């Protein structure tokens, strides 16, 4: 069977491709050229740069399958980058990797794959997909809990999951690197990517300001009582739960508790002011079940590195949902995803309002 592998140039997607080829599939490697990263004077993340595309090409050549590069600069700008800037400008904290998965890899790239006679797109994500007895496609956590990336895949629809394949999803990272060494892949020791790939030097604030200069005008920092305690250089520089970089002195540590982009106001408070037992989410995608009309017990994860909190979720009209936690959670951050799990299975997820 012909399978397209989305190759970022990292060790995970490289091993994913090599394993599929070993299993006898006809692998076609596709890399996405997403942004102009040709300026050697800037430090780019370690994903999808020209060097990474070359790494992907070397893996393809060594294993012996064809590899092509699609130029998706325009699509990437129109979906992932514009959303990233819009979210920061609205005082929220975006999660571009999730958009890249649902809006590019498993939409535009999948569409191209189908045009090439491939019915599946494989990636190097640490997640698993299977089919329940009642015919629903299910998304599950990776068997390596430290590497699990199901959080970033919550917005894949049933149709997208049906065509998704995660060859390294049931392997621990160490085993993936072992495979890479066994296969002689030059990327075996390549470090994991950390930063957001399209922002040079990890400087999100400058990146956003270049596109929305008015944000840099800044505004007031106020306390929970509404009294001004300082000024700031733009709401895009803050995220709910942030402690560092506030430039305030106080007896108790202060955290960002609220961001109001309309008035360009950042509210700060003590740690307890960050606690919430309730949240609502929009654009909710239900995966293992249909939208639940009565509360369902789940554990909900509100950011990538977050110990999920137990509670109940119920669907609201207009693809929204309300989550009530048993115990208060710290820093529920608008713009991030909330993903509902039952055990290791993703029940669904949405965007925190």
């Amino acid at each position, binding site marked *: 069977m012909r399978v397209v592998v989305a190759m970022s140039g990292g060790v995970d997607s490289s091993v994913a491709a090599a394993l599929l080829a070993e299993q006898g599939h006809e692998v076609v490697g596709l890399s996405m050229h997403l942004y102009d990263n040709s300026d050697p004077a800037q430090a780019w993340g370690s994903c999808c740069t020209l060097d990474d595309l070359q790494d992907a090409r070397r893996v393809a050549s060594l294993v012996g399958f064809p590899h092509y*590069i*699609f130029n998706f600069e325009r699509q990437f700008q129109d979906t992932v980058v514009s959303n990233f800037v819009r979210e920061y400008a609205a005082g929220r904290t975006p999660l571009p990797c999730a958009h890249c998965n649902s809006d590019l890899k498993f939409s535009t790239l999948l569409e191209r794959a189908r*045009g090439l006679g491939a019915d599946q797109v494989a990636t190097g994500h640490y997640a698993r997909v299977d089919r329940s007895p009642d015919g629903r496609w299910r998304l599950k956590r990776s068997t390596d809990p430290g590497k699990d990336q199901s959080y970033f895949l919550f917005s894949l629809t049933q149709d997208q999951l049906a065509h998704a394949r995660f060859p390294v999803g049931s392997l621990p990272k160490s085993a993936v690197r072992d495979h890479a060494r066994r296969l002689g892949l030059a990327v075996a020791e390549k470090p994991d990517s950390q930063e957001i790939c399209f922002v040079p030097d990890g400087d999100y604030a400058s990146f956003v300001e270049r596109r929305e200069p008015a944000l840099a005008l800044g505004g007031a920092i106020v306390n929970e009582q509404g009294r001004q305690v300082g000024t700031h250089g733009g709401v895009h520089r803050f995220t709910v739960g942030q402690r560092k970089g506030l430039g305030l002195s106080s007896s108790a540590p202060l955290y960002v508790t609220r961001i109001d982009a309309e008035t360009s106001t950042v509210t700060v408070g003590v740690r307890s002011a960050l606690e919430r037992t309730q949240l609502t989410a929009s654009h909710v995608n239900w995966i293992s079940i249909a939208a639940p009309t009565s509360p369902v017990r789940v554990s909900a994860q509100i950011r990538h590195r977050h110990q999920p909190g137990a509670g109940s979720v119920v669907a609201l009209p207009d693809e929204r949902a309300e989550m009530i936690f048993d115990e208060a959670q710290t820093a529920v951050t608008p713009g991030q995803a909330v993903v509902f799990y039952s055990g290791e299975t993703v029940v669904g997820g949405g965007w925190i309002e």
Partner: protein
Amino acid sequence: MHRIYLDHNATTPVLPEVADRAAAALRDEFGNPSSVHHFGQQAKAAIDEARTLTAALLDGDPAEVIFTSGGTESDNIAIRGAADALEASGRRHLIVTAIEHEAVLNTVKALARRGWRVTLLPVDQTGVVSPDALRAALDEDTALVSVMHANNEIGTIQPIAELAHLAHSTGAIFHTDAVQSAGKLPIHVKALGVDLLSISAHKFYGPKGVGALWVRRGLRVLPVLTGGRQERNRRAGTENVPGIVGMGVAARIAQAKMDQEGARLALLRDRLEAGILAAVPGTAVNGGGSARVANTTNISFERVEAESLLIALDLDGVAVSTGSACSSGTLEPSHVLKAMGLPTHRTQNSIRFSLGAANTDADIDRVLAILPGIVTKLRNLTRAVRA
């Protein structure tokens, strides 16, 4: 899988005779052609023979041929070297066409940053420059005019003799990039009336990394690479002897086969073109209304992503390209098709088929058998996704 190569304008497979001659030079003629002793003389004799063969392909004098590292370097020496030599004359204006290869376009851009005035000549809908446009652009300040002989993307042939005559009438010198015509069209440098002419060996079954610049006797061109006095002080650096002797053999064979091979390829190309136009709705030939080199056709496929079509064909064993190889990997629509004034749906969805020595009737049959199905599949998918 039997693979069909239809990308000869990007590069051609090296002929066995060429490879043998180059290999012999690598093994046996290792001397430095500048050396006085036997080994040097042997290498020098080898490149002299290649110079004669290369000059014969252009109907020029061997003493007028400079060996270079390829078409890009030849274009650079022609334009930069002539511009440098003409700087003292006070003329500071260059004219090139909008459809030149990047080797010319980016070279004049670099000169523009140094204060040279540059005019880009427009082309008509079939990709041809009009002499009137050149006449209008020329003035007393014009130092050099550069117009390619045949275009790499669409194959159209420019009226070089007429354009060169015009350029000379105001005292400008004339360069032509003949990289895509050398070995395909008869070239007589004197009849064309040019002052400088660039060629590249790997476009006519020679090795990569070697080319030549023909420089009319008496024309001053300053070196771009500075160093030793090789190539009559116009191109420093120890000569690429294996590449040069390989090019000589390639030039000899290209010249001997040119008429017959051109006629053969024209038949194949015309059959491919007519077959695609008949079998695939929403297709159009770009540059079809004018004289073209025999091996090239450039076809736009409405509502098809050219990148996807190229990859789908490659997975089925057919190698083609979108526009020029140099612009692959960029989103920019072809600057050539844009200069022809074609609408976006044609500039972004075009595929170049360029035929060559190994292609047969059976190859064309195979392409015509699989292409319509691939296009239909890609189009249905686009419709399904947009619906």
